């Protein structure tokens, strides 16, 4: 190693990430304009993809970065959904206001929950979060004002508050879900670029080492848990605003809101922002492709997840990074050394 280095710089964006940013902006423009050229079925599918990406990003942030392997995130999906239905149906609150409150409410509930589950480690934490979600589901099935076991439906006046035209309403709901998903992905991206992100990446790579270097691991994890619950609650409200009705089984379903989400993250690549997108696309592709064959797509998804976990535990995007050193979302930092001769030539 010679010392003939003229300049040293720390870069974040790469050529690939700049090209990707342009392409992503174009794709996003296409998605935003979808209501003007697509039909209701397209919008429903894209909205579903959007909320699954958001859920996958959030679980990835929790488990892939903060090391909090929760299997109880459905608690906050259901909580957000129920809060929307309760506030609009019982308190006659404006539907947009209710959707905005649902997220912070879930975050607020997550604070006492975190006091309990943060006492647990590893597998105990995972099971503990699941039991908490079961408690919420049972409570929802006991509370009469929440429709008890049969759940709640959104009434027509509430829907007409959004718009009296069905097409306009579909478009607004679609854009809201797309916006929320963008918001969540943006939060995750900005969080990972911030100093908390540096702490999180350190915790991801080695928790004891990061703690010994002065990272406040407990504080970081606490913030991530609460932030994740808040965003999950918001997404939950939007999911059930699309579905128009909620029940304890649908709202707090571990299979729908956590298991398939975990599969997406692991297949796509845990601990990366790109992974959840890839995993979601594979999930939706399998489901649409095998739509006529019942739930075989879930069996196939489970098999793929098992194979990836055992053969390529860093997932599809992890494999791409290893081979091509590609990063589409520039959350890392890279050191650029420019040698002297090269600089002299110019």
């Amino acid at each position, binding site marked *: 190693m010679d010392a003939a280095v003229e300049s040293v710089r720390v870069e974040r964006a790469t050529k690939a990430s700049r090209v990707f940013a342009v392409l992503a902006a174009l794709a996003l423009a296409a998605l935003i304009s979808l209501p003007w050229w697509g039909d209701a079925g397209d919008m429903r599918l894209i909205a579903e993809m959007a909320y699954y990406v958001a859920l996958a990003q959030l679980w990835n942030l929790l*488990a892939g970065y903060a090391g909090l*392997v929760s*299997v109880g995130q459905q608690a906050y999906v259901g909580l957000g959904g129920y809060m929307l239905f309760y506030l609009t149906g019982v308190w006659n609150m404006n539907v947009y206001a209710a959707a905005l409150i649902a997220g912070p409410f879930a975050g607020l509930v997550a604070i006492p929950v975190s006091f*309990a589950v943060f*006492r*647990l*480690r*590893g*597998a*105990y934490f*995972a*099971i*503990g979060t*699941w*039991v*908490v979600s*079961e*408690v919420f589901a*049972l*409570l929802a*099935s*006991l509370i009469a004002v929440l429709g008890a076991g049969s759940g709640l439906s959104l009434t027509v006046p509430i829907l007409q508050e959004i718009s009296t035209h069905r097409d306009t309403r579909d478009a607004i709901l679609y854009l809201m879900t797309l916006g929320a998903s963008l918001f969540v992905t943006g939060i995750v991206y900005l969080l990972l670029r911030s100093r908390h992100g540096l702490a999180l990446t350190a915790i991801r790579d080695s928790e004891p080492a990061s703690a010994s270097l002065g990272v406040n691991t407990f504080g970081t994890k606490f913030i991530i848990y609460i932030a994740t619950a808040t965003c999950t609650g918001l997404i939950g409200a939007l999911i059930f605003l699309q579905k128009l009705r909620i029940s304890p089984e649908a709202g707090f379903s*571990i*299979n729908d809101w956590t*298991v398939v989400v*975990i*599969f997406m993250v*692991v297949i796509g690549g*845990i601990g990366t922002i790109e992974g959840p997108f890839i995993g979601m696309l594979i999930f939706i592709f399998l489901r649409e492709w095998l739509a006529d064959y*019942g*739930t*075989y797509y*879930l*069996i196939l*998804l*489970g*098999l793929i*997840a*098992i194979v990836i*976990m*055992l053969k390529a*535990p860093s997932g599809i995007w992890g494999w791409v990074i290893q081979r091509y050193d590609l990063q589409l979302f520039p959350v890392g930092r890279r050191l650029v050394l420019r040698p002297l001769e090269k600089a002299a030539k110019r």
Partner: protein
Amino acid sequence: MQWINILVQGSLLGGFYALFAIGLSMSFGIMRLVNIAHGDFIVLSAYVGMIAVDATGLNPFLSLIIVMPAMFLLGYALQRGLLNFTLSGGLLPPLLVTFGISVIIQNGLLQGFGAYDHRLKEGAIETASLHLPGGFDVGVFPLLVFAVAVASIGSLQVLFYWTRLGRAFRAVSDDADTAELMGIDNRKLYAVAFGIAMVFTAIAGILFGIRTIFDPAAGPIRLILAFEAVIIGGLGSLWGTLIGGMVLGIAQEIGAALNPNWQILAGHVAFLALLIMRPSGLFPRTRD
């Protein structure tokens, strides 16, 4: 009097949960395997029992002659071919792989048998009860389940403390690397352990299928109840698991006495409260 009744019924229910939990406690205690598919293996055993009963006309209890070896082989093969490869890299690999198995079993049963309820019919024993002095009744079947749970734990205790195999189990549980240095083939041993765990899962599954209706989605809640019994009792202690199951059962009976809808909820709340007070359970034996 009502309180004694609650204690008795709750304890008997606890025997049932302990029986659910034995297989889970074994794989958790010996290889630190968090088996999310455990509840689905219980349900799968009930389905295998149903197939055996339909094919041979055997009594459900006797179907165990077929179900126990079948589940042993499945467990042995799964551990050797799949689960052994998940044990070196933290919590996520076993969690994810067993989630995958869980989804595959649930949806496989759904595709194969539909979403209908099934039940293993045993006849008179399901409803028979003993009249005890003091005016309360104890079901014969819950009593039998409790006896089976105690006998199962007792036989495992003999296996663990009186046999070479059991000594090897304890050795790998305490320190897998050192055990390997002493000449134990951990991978093979884990496969035998999971096979044995599945034999007890088979017993739990058949008794479960006789006691209540089951469908492809019945697994996850059994898993949670089993986990609660294991964690309340303390990791690696089978008698602790029995006590854990009884604590859970009694908490549920108290809840049910207050309001029939509160049964499961009361169990979960008691579990969470105990976990917050004593995160390593009542009688922890294995270091996590």
